[in-house]
């Protein structure tokens, strides 16, 4: 098989305008978005609330129609049943038929993929095991907690052994253990050469899991690429230093090297501009007979990028308004 990365999802200048309210006020939820998800990768789709992640995913799944632009799954235009047969989808805060038990529920969705009989029953048991819901196999979904629903939701997305799995905020509503389990699950899917695209606010999870991420804000792509590249781009690392017993005048000497100074009781938190200032700062502390409590290099993360992009976007948008 061709191992060269080939796009499984291809989005080209996708745009969605909603008309809301009586006067049909136009809200542009997705604005000329283009991106590709390659075969076998874990792709993070990031952005703040209201960025347009869910809207994009709903267009990919054929739930809403683009106002303009195109998208393909496996080279087939979205909405094509042949493409949908190879996709698994978990909607945002999923809602299911709450009068069904988890087994009946998975059976129903299996039928929709044309799966029947013992093969389906075996698959259902496997999946319940995988998401840790075997104990609740005969419980009605309306008696489920949010996290339990999320788990059967994930099982539902995997019923057809899909090649591409699209998850809209798979970690939401899960406790730390559940989140770790979902992370492990995504990694396991990657091992079995599946393609995973998921949206999230939790940048930490994305950083741990993703090969590549796209960041969108106000419907527009603001960054896209390998996590290592994106994080590396702004490698200026700050360092946090906490010291005790430091007089006010020695603080004045330190001020030129710092970004921020915070007094907390007899401790002082200093945020140094970068690691090159550490030695000078330490010398000054020693001279002033202060005690060093801790020294923490602040590794730059997706979160920093996210916040910088968000801040950078604000003034531009205000100008436009």
């Amino acid at each position, binding site marked *: 098989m061709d191992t060269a990365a080939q796009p499984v999802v291809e989005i080209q200048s996708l745009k969605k305008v*909603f008309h809301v309210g009586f006067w049909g006020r136009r809200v542009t939820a997705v604005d000329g978005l283009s991106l590709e998800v390659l075969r076998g990768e874990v792709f993070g789709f990031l952005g703040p609330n209201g960025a347009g992640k869910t809207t994009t995913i*709903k267009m990919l*799944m*054929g*739930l*809403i*129609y683009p106002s303009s632009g195109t998208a393909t799954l496996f080279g087939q235009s979205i909405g094509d*049943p*042949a493409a*949908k*047969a190879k*996709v698994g*989808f978990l*909607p945002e805060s*999923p*809602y*299911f*038929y709450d*009068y*069904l038990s988890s087994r009946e529920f998975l059976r*129903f*969705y299996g*039928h*929709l*993929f*044309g799966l*029947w009989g013992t093969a389906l029953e075996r698959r259902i048991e496997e999946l319940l095991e995988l998401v840790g819901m075997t104990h609740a196999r005969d419980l009605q979904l309306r008696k489920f907690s949010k996290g339990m629903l999320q788990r059967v939701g994930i099982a*539902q997305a995997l019923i057809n052994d899909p090649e591409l799995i699209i998850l809209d905020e798979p970690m939401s509503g899960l406790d730390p253990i559940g989140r770790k389990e979902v992370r492990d699950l995504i990694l396991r899917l990657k091992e079995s050469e599946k393609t995973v695209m998921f949206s999230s606010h939790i940048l930490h999870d994305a950083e741990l899991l993703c090969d590549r991420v796209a960041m969108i804000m106000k419907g527009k792509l603001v960054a896209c690429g390998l996590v290592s590249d994106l994080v590396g781009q702004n490698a200026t690392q700050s360092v946090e230093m906490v010291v005790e017993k430091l007089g006010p005048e020695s603080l004045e000497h330190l001020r030129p090297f710092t970004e921020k100074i915070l007094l907390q009781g007899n401790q002082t938190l200093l945020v140094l501009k970068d690691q090159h200032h550490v030695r000078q700062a330490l010398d000054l502390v020693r001279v002033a007979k202060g005690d060093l409590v801790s020294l923490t290099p602040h590794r730059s993360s997706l979160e920093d990028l996210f916040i910088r992009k968000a801040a950078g976007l604000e003034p531009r948008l205000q100008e436009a308004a």
Partner: protein
Amino acid sequence: MKVWSIAFNTFRENLRDKLLYNLLIFALLMIGSSLILMRLTLGEFHRLILDIGLGSINFFGVLIAIFIGIGLVSKEIEKKTIYTIISKPVARFQFLLGKYLGLSVTLLINTAIMTAGLLAVLYLQEVPVHGVLFKALGMIMVEFMVITAVALLFSTFSSATLSAIFTLAVYVIGHLTPDLKAFGQKMDGLSQTVLEGMYYVLPNLERFNLKGHVTHQLDVPVSDLLIITAYGITYTAFLLLLASVIFQRRDFR
């Protein structure tokens, strides 16, 4: 197969609807109320019981068709359960057809139960049962199919309340269509055009009404039944096609 899975799931969902049981109980009470009627002159008494029985089955069946029918699609959109269905390899018309068939099965079973109630009353009141009664019940079922399709069509583009009002209006006017034409002929100009337009567009539901035949023990030839059924099926198919076209274009948001 996918369509039947959706139909079966819809049927199970209907069974959980309290409205269904309330309407069914009311229908049975109405039918059963004939038990306490005083015996009038024999012929009229039989006619009255059959009249009340068939009338109740028709009326309550239509209420079930309308009030469950309008929620078939809108509830799935509101509760967002539709997201997981449409994202599977299921065409939108298959979803619609599945919902439709599911409610049809519910209605069929309901009609069977109401019929059993009517038969029990007829037996207790010693009213003779003729074959034409079952023919009439069959045509009532065909009418339910049409009404369900009307409710489904409206619910693909309007709110539940509006759909209920529209469908009820179609039901009422549909039983008046012969009058509509006669009435239109007495008018002139625009009113005539509108009334005649309605006569041709709306279903002629009186065609499904064989109550008069039952009460007067007049048999209906099978060929007539086939024509009436064909009319009902054609009309239903047309409504479902229209509903699919509208539904296909919708955004689920």
